[in-house]
């Protein structure tokens, strides 16, 4: 059984795994990080989305043996210093969560989107979220929440860097 060592939510971890083990199962069953959900198991629904070296991937399709040396971020690693991420607050404030099963994957896809494209249009939001299915909300509130979080992030970066150009 190979050992795989990677950085999970900023912390180095090392775990012995079977070569055919998928990342989502290692996260949930071996490392106790159950925020990452299994929906379809075949890369359709996005409930298992995690960030691998900053990019969203379906952790149900990634062999755990392949993440050696990589940075993995799950929903457990999105809040910083006990403060919820603006996306997490916006999902609650906008009512973008109903049953909640898709939410961890939604938040990670949205985070990847905003990291790459801080001021997305509604079309860009919908394209960025195309790999995450929600069977409760109908997506309208999810799009609203992501837009609200983008606005909040833009405001706080202006506060943090008062010299920054407006609207950038």
């Amino acid at each position, binding site marked *: 059984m*190979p050992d795989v060592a990677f950085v999970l939510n900023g912390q180095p971890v090392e775990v012995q795994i*079977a*070569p*055919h083990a*998928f990342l989502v199962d290692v996260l949930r069953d071996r490392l106790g990080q159950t925020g990452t959900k299994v929906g379809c*198991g*075949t*890369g*359709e629904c*996005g409930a298992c*989305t995690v960030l*691998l070296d900053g*990019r*969203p*991937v*379906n952790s149900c*399709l*990634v*062999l755990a*043996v*392949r993440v050696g040396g990589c940075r993995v971020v799950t929903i457990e690693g999105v809040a910083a210093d006990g403060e919820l991420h603006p996306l997490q607050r916006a999902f609650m404030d906008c009512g973008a969560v109903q049953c909640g099963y898709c939410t961890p994957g939604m938040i990670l*896809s949205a985070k*990847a*989107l905003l990291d790459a494209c801080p001021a997305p249009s509604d079309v860009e939001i919908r*394209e*960025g979220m*195309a*790999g*995450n299915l929600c069977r409760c909300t109908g997506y309208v509130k999810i799009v609203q929440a992501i837009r609200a979080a983008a606005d909040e992030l833009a405001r706080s970066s202006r506060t943090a860097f008062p010299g920054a150009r407006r609207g950038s």
Partner: protein
Amino acid sequence: MKAFGYMAPRSIEEAVGLLGRESAVPLAGGTDLLVAIKRGAPAPEWMVDITGIGLDRIEEADGALCLGAASTHARILASDTVRSRFPALMEALTGIGSPQVRNLATIGGNICYAVPSADSVPPLLALGAEIEVIGPAGSRRWRLEEFFVGPRRTVLGPGELVTEVRVPLPAPGTGTAFLKAGRRKAMSLAVVNVAVSMRAAADNRTADGVRIALGAVAPTPLRAYSAEQLLQGRVFTADLAEEAAMEAAKATAPISDLRATARYRYDLSKVLVKRAIMKAWERAAGPGR
């Protein structure tokens, strides 16, 4: 999940050696292969990971865009050359899977999996792409038209590995377009997909270098040669585009399945080919050329 072994070679030579074993298959993004195994397809004894052997280069060389076979769709989409010179390829790759899938899935995988609906294939056919293969007997190069044998079947022999997709840089004044009809806007397999590449001759009225390719309408993606001939060297008109689209549909041999009937695919082929020709011509000869 069925058990299999995993090997991560560090060079192409090492990978070819490992793939020479019986029951070893190359693993790239895994978005088709691993899903198939999860759904009950037999697992190989060994997975040979080909994502760490230098097959992820994206570069211009010798008048061609060279895409390493293990380049992910997301990385190809981020390439300036693709964005500026290969709009049809960009349009096709943008519609493959989801952002998560495009971060894993590779161009070589999309081609080698050889499903008739593969979205990357019609634009690559229309652009005259070639496939570089390495194997126990050395390397060889295939025209993409000759690469597919049937649904999920290619010319690749035991132990052979696709290393690169070479796409000639389009001649100046070339317009390309890709259109796809699926059941949804996103995360959808093509019911029909079409790509066209053509250029306007010096008079800006005559069609030249015409290539028309269709997917999901036959056992393999195909070129509509007789439709191309109808346009080639003639003064372009919308009526001629319509005629070529009718001719292209005749080259199809669609099946009925849960996504569409054969008849619908046939009719849709005409509509999409006509629209793709008009769009490619507009890009070739229009005011924005």
